[in-house]
């Protein structure tokens, strides 16, 4: 026992759900290979290095899993030991691995992953991966509801609300934004696309870009807990919860604005 403990690394903030922590670390480590591939592969896809998209998804999945592993400590006591949870968590990780394999495989083949309708196989894979994406994002819903409803939680009520609500909103807002995005022919709405884009994110500065709404929607699980933390630290107790609700309402409005602006074919930041 002591020997087993001795070879373990020091406790980390991600220990409460080791599957998610390992998945996050694994996606981060896998960047070594795709970054090296980006350095040697001259191929471009829609004007960018063909490995840019897999790299973005690896970074996103790293953040996704480390966030879930971090919040997992506030799941109701005993929940992560339950068999149903362990199966669910493993399937979530498996779904993201399938998703990443598909995206990297498409880059390898020099073709599109998302929006690819060129062959029946590509179109069916795209549909399947959409389903898997909804499934693995549901981890935020499951965790959010569980944390929200846990009356025995050690968190201050307003912070518990913020964490739970943030996770639930990630699912509830990502579903319509990413779902609509997936039904379009591509992530741009409008013409002409000459290539003017924001640095790092790559969002269009000349036409509507639905990826912004997807990004904001999915980051509800970061924004709201931080807003909740600020509210708990800065406001008197009875105001903290209303402040969280206000922040949530404002964030939903922000996502809705980004979404409708993109659908109208307009850039958020010109």
């Amino acid at each position, binding site marked *: 026992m002591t020997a087993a403990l001795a070879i373990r690394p020091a406790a980390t903030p991600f220990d409460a759900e080791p599957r998610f922590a390992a998945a996050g670390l694994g996606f981060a480590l896998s960047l*070594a*290979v*795709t970054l*090296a*591939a980006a*350095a*040697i*592969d001259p*191929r471009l896809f829609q004007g960018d290095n063909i*490995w840019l998209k897999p790299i973005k998804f690896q970074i996103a999945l790293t953040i996704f899993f480390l966030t879930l592993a971090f919040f997992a400590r506030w799941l109701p006591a005993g929940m992560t030991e339950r068999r149903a949870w362990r199966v669910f968590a493993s399937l979530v990780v498996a779904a993201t691995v399938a998703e990443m394999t598909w995206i*990297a495989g498409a*880059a*390898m*083949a*020099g073709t599109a992953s998302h929006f690819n309708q060129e062959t029946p196989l590509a179109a069916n894979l795209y549909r399947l991966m959409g389903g898997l994406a909804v499934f693995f994002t549901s981890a935020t819903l499951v965790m959010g509801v569980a944390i929200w409803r846990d009356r025995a939680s050690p968190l201050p009520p307003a912070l518990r609300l913020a964490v739970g609500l943030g996770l639930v909103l990630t699912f509830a807002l990502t579903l319509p934004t990413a779902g609509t995005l997936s039904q379009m022919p591509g992530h741009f709405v409008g013409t002409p696309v000459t290539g003017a884009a924001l640095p790092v994110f790559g969002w269009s500065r000349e036409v509507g870009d639905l990826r912004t709404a997807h990004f904001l929607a999915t980051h509800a699980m970061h924004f709201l807990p931080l807003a909740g933390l600020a509210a708990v630290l800065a406001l008197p107790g009875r105001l903290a919860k209303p402040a969280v609700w206000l922040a949530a309402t404002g964030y939903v409005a922000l996502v809705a604005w980004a979404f409708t602006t993109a659908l109208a074919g307009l850039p958020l930041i010109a």
Partner: protein
Amino acid sequence: MSPDILFQFSSPLALFGWAALLAAPLAPALADRVAGLVVPALLSVAYAALILAFWWDAPGGFDSLAAVQALFTDPRIALAGWLHYLAFDLLVGAWEVRTARREGFPYLLLVPCLVLTFLFGPAGFLAFLGLRLARRATRPMEATR
């Protein structure tokens, strides 16, 4: 980065690993880590990147000798194949060093096996297995693990 530049980096890297193995009696733990882990891992990253980037458009395949030859007419795939040799030969060398240390196999017998493994991979592996077997068979009283 072009395949030629990658090639120029890979050979000194592998040589560094082999040098560590030759110096293993002086710094066993360091040699294990360098030749059995770090250098093969770096070569493997480069290999995997080459496969991700260039495999799809490569000619040939695995199903016939002619197909394998065609595969290696692509310089980028030939480089990947070369890195594969470098990485795995070094891993075999590192295994020989660890096994020799554990079993008390003499360093002076190990060195020719390492040289042969470095130059002609499987031949060196075979030499090590042969010498190890011969030594074991002729020294029955020694504890073998």
